[in-house]
């Protein structure tokens, strides 16, 4: 199905281009532009190929299944309307790329810009070509997202960030409404397929859900098209680079809203609800937008409000519900895109060449850039609706529709007056744009000396202006075919009669045009004094500031309410938080106990306790209580006692048939102890004070409360574990593991097989966590600043160094070096045996207790011993461990092992096992899980060593800090 392939390519190409551009280096502007140019040229070519198939209301569709159970599919569909939009998106996109090539400064990262722009282009094409409602919404949200990135392209600029955030908030909120509306619409129709939806107009209009669906979809469309009262985001989005405004805020993004209205016009228009919701919104936007545009001092602000107003015009036309009005709407979509894109580009050139967009400072530029000025004048005349230009034609059609009778209501009858008023406003602001910028006295305080832009920067405007003229002079020949095919997709093959002629004789619309022209000129002349006074904003309606309302809502939601909630429920102090956590845990555990009485003793026969076990636990309990008692004043003792409790835990594992746990616990115990020992050095000295001897009442009360909590936790844990242990073991998933560990996992050590095979994905996550933690530890310690009273060398080292310094035959540091001479010697020579032990533990892991994790810790202990023996400098003189490499390789090995099974067509991390006979060594289990375990091993070595070394290095940092402070 080559058509289908082409259709997918049409949407997919920009995304592919975006990906390619994003991979380019920062300065590769030409390559990025070339990629974008290639995408647009091919895109235009493909779009043109489709033209013969979209005439007379016909369409081409292509589908790929996505989630068929929910009726979701990657379905694309092109008809006349989609074709018009596709050619606009690609065509104007290509011109914008050419323009941006000159606009984006050399110091800005052009590939990023092009990448975002292409991604946006793809998203926009997805919206117009989607053949499935959900897919349409998906691309719709993508356009919001990429417009956010594009508006915020100069993210160092606060205005750009705010504008981007506001645009995203408003359009994405509308997008959510649209999503709900689309789902409801799909429910009414019974399918999300656009062809089916478009064929079920009767069912949709008669559904009881029609009104909610309509309101939700309109919320999506009106926010996107910046319709009153959601228009305020568009002027704020003007902080985007001008190519973005020319593309998004004239031809594409904001047109998505009116596209959606046109798309659903066949099934939703013509109802009273549609008329009374859409027409007032469009009318208000048309008039208010045009009125505000007159009073803007920013060139782009003027164009933004003008865009709002023109979108209001299109919305109004679509709202009227008559086929002729819909044709006019489609025509105006095309015309507005063409003249507004060229005007934005002209404004960008003015900004680029003079350094300002402020109408109060700009003046008389005609002298410096006559060519650009002529082009802008023609485009502005098209915007004002001057005859022989494209804007005139669609405006006349609009005036004719405004005069025509639709519902006979007051609203309908008032339309001609409002339309003429808006026409006057548009003439006034177009005049202001031209006269204020290009005429008048020479400019005085411009940041830069203006001149004509580069040849090819002007080319897009030239082309667009020529199109304006061609459409304006020979409309029927130029776009009659295009308008017909696009309009047929909206109103059906049975097109109403309309005439694309420049001259229709003397009639009412022409009279309205004349009144608008004359009135606009008079209005501009009358307002000149006020405008020159320099005040920002219109004289009336000053308080009608939707932006301020929006900001107030945002502040209330995200700041005031959030703060209030935080004050009620939050605390910045750890102790109350932990206390709350413990209390919640106690409550959560006691509820089922109270409800089901689970604390009773079960019937399982007890395992007889041996005296040795009792003795071991007597020691363990003593250690735990001792550690709790000593942790405040005797840290080393507490650490030793904790280690004791750890060893008892370890022995218990061993006793109760968990050799893997015992081994791991023992090794982790060693590393943890070393880690904490290294940290002890940086903690403050704590001496028992008078206050400690006689604690205050509040402290005693707090201790009693904590004691009660601790007792509750302890008792609860005891009772729960006893209750479980005295009940028989039910049949659990363990059966699966035991039965298949050897036959399918290829290993006899069930625990290891569970870790590296059955639950390999968990382990992958776990080692990733370890990796992240190690990097965090490393990063935090790089910025570590010890407290001033911990900076000094420890007392013992000071005494030893003083002893060395006092004797001429000794170097400072000799005593420290001699101090552990024999243990040091032994430690250094322990490296090879420990490394061998690590390999041994690793190799046997699949069959016997051991495995990658234990082996990794063992090897890291071997490294750490070297550091302990020779000191940081001594160890690093002979040994270079590159922990980051170990970690990276480990994570890579583990992930690639998992991915390898994907290549062979199995799910991620599927393992393969067999035994291999190696000479001398004998039978060795060679499961692919072994490779995975190797990754675990390398990562654990890297992570553990990284943390320990980072901490150990702090002992080098301390004294150096002191010296840098300038002490003797």
């Amino acid at each position, binding site marked *: 199905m080559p058509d289908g392939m082409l259709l997918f390519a049409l949407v997919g190409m920009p995304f592919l281009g975006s990906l390619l551009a994003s991979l380019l280096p920062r300065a590769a502007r030409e390559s990025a532009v070339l990629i974008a140019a290639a995408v647009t040229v091919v895109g235009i070519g493909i779009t043109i190929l489709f033209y013969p198939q979209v005439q007379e209301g016909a369409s081409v569709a292509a589908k790929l299944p996505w989630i068929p159970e929910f009726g979701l599919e990657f379905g694309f569909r092109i008809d006349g309307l989609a074709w018009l939009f596709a050619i606009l998106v690609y065509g104007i996109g290509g011109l914008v790329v050419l323009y941006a090539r000159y606009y984006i400064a050399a110091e800005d990262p052009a590939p990023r810009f092009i990448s975002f722009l292409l991604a946006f282009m793809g998203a926009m094409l997805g919206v117009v070509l989607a053949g499935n409602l959900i897919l349409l919404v998906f691309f719709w949200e993508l356009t919001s997202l990429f417009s956010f990135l594009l508006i915020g392209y100069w993210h160092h600029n606060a205005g750009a960030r705010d504008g981007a955030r506001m645009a995203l908030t408003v359009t994405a909120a509308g997008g959510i409404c649209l999503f709900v509306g689309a789902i409801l619409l799909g429910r009414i129709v019974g399918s999300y397929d656009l062809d089916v939806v478009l064929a079920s107009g009767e069912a949709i209009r008669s559904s009881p859900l029609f009104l909610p669906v309509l309101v939700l979809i309109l919320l999506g469309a009106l926010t996107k098209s910046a319709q009153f009262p959601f228009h305020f985001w568009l002027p704020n989005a003007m902080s985007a680079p001008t190519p973005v405004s020319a593309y998004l805020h004239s031809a594409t993004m904001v047109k998505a809203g009116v596209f959606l209205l046109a798309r659903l016009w066949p099934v939703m228009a013509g109802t009273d609800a549609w008329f009374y919701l859409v027409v007032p919104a469009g009318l208000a936007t048309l008039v208010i937008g045009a009125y505000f545009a007159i009073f803007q001092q920013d060139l782009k602000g003027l164009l933004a409000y003008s865009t709002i107003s023109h979108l209001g015009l299109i919305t109004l036309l679509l709202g009227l519900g008559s086929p002729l009005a819909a044709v006019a709407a489609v025509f105006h979509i095309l015309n507005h895109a063409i003249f507004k894109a060229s005007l934005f580009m002209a404004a960008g050139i003015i900004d680029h060449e003079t350094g300002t967009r402020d109408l109060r400072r700009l003046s008389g530029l005609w002298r410096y850039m006559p060519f650009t000025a002529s082009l802008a004048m023609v485009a502005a005349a098209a915007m004002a609706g001057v005859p022989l230009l494209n804007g005139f034609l669609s405006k006349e059609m609009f005036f004719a529709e405004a005069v025509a009778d639709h519902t006979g209501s007051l609203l309908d009858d008032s339309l001609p007056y409002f339309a003429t008023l808006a026409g006057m406003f548009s003439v006034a602001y177009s005049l202001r744009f031209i006269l204020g910028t290009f005429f008048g006295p020479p400019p005085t305080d411009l940041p830069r000396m203006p001149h004509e832009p580069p040849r090819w920067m002007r080319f897009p405007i030239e082309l667009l202006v020529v199109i304006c003229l061609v459409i304006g002079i020979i409309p029927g020949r130029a776009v009659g075919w295009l308008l017909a095919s696009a309009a047929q997709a909206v109103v059906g093959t049975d097109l109403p009669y309309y005439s694309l002629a420049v001259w229709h004789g003397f009639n009412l619309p022409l009279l309205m045009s004349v009144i608008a022209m004359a009135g606009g000129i008079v209005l501009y002349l009358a307002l000149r004094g006020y405008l020159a006074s320099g005040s920002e904003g219109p004289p009336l309606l000053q308080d009608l500031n939707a932006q301020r309302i929006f900001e107030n809502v945002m502040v209330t939601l995200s700041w005031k309410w959030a703060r209030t909630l935080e004050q009620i429920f939050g605390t910045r102090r750890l102790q109350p938080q932990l206390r709350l956590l413990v209390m919640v845990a106690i409550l959560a555990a006691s509820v089922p106990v109270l409800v089901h009485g689970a604390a009773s003793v079960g019937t399982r026969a007890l395992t007889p306790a041996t005296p040795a076990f009792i003795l071991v636990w007597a020691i363990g309990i003593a250690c735990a209580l001792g550690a709790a008692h000593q942790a405040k004043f005797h840290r080393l003792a507490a650490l030793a006692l904790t280690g004791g409790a750890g060893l008892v835990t370890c022995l218990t594992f061993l006793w109760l048939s968990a050799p893997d746990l015992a081994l791991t616990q023992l090794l982790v115990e060693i590393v943890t102890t070393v880690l904490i020992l290294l940290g002890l050095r940086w903690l403050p000295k704590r001496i028992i004070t008078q206050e400690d001897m006689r604690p205050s009442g509040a402290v005693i009360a707090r201790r009693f409360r904590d004691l009660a909590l601790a007792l509750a936790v302890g008792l609860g844990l005891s009772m729960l574990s006893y209750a479980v242990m005295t009940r028989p073991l039910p049949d659990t998933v363990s059966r699966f593991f035991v039965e298949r*560990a050897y036959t399918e996992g290829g290993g006899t050590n069930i625990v290891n097989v569970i870790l590296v095979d059955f639950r390999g994905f968990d382990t992958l996550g776990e080692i990733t966590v370890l990796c992240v933690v190690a990097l965090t530890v490393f990063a935090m310690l790089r910025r570590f600043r010890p407290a001033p009273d911990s900076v000094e060398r420890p007392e013992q080292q000071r005494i030893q160094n003083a002893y060395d310094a006092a004797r001429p035959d000794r170097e400072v540091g000799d005593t420290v070096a001699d101090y552990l001479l024999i243990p040091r010697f032994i430690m250094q020579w322990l490296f090879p045996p420990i490394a061998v032990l690590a390999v041994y533990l690793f190799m046997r892991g699949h069959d016997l207790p051991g495995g990658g994790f234990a082996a990794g810790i063992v090897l890291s202990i071997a490294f750490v011993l070297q550091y302990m023996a020779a000191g940081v400098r001594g160890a690093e003189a002979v040994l270079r461990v590159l922990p980051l490499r170990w970690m990276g390789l480990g994570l890579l090995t583990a992930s690639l092992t998992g991915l390898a099974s994907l290549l062979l067509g199995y799910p991620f991390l599927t393992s393969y096992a067999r035994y291999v006979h190696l000479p001398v060594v004998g039978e060795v289990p060679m499961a692919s899980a072994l490779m995975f375990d190797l990754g675990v091993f390398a990562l654990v070595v890297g992570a553990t060593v990284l943390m320990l070394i980072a901490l150990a290095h702090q002992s080098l940092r301390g004294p150096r800090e002191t010296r840098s402070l300038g002490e003797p």
Partner: protein
Amino acid sequence: METILAIGIGVLGGAGTWLLLRPRTYQVIIGLSLLSYAVNLFIFSMGRLRPGAPPILEKGVAGDPAAFADPLPQGLVLTAIVIGFAMTALFLVVLLTARGRTGSDHVDGLGD
């Protein structure tokens, strides 16, 4: 044995919780260690106590679940030990950094 282990778990958990609620960072880190022991043993005890039956299979035969200690809690605890280690390391460094920044070893950085 069940009774002894249950008491042991309770004492470790209680001592850990007590330290967890103390104001000094070092007490909290020791408390976390003790609490980890308690919780690991607790999870482990969910597989019931079985001395002398480590879950190591004979080669060449499918395993019989009745003949071995439950491997599932062991697998879970093994993961928990590793994560506990990572947590201790991270907390230790947070503790040291906080001490360097605030000059105090109080959990909330309050002065003495």
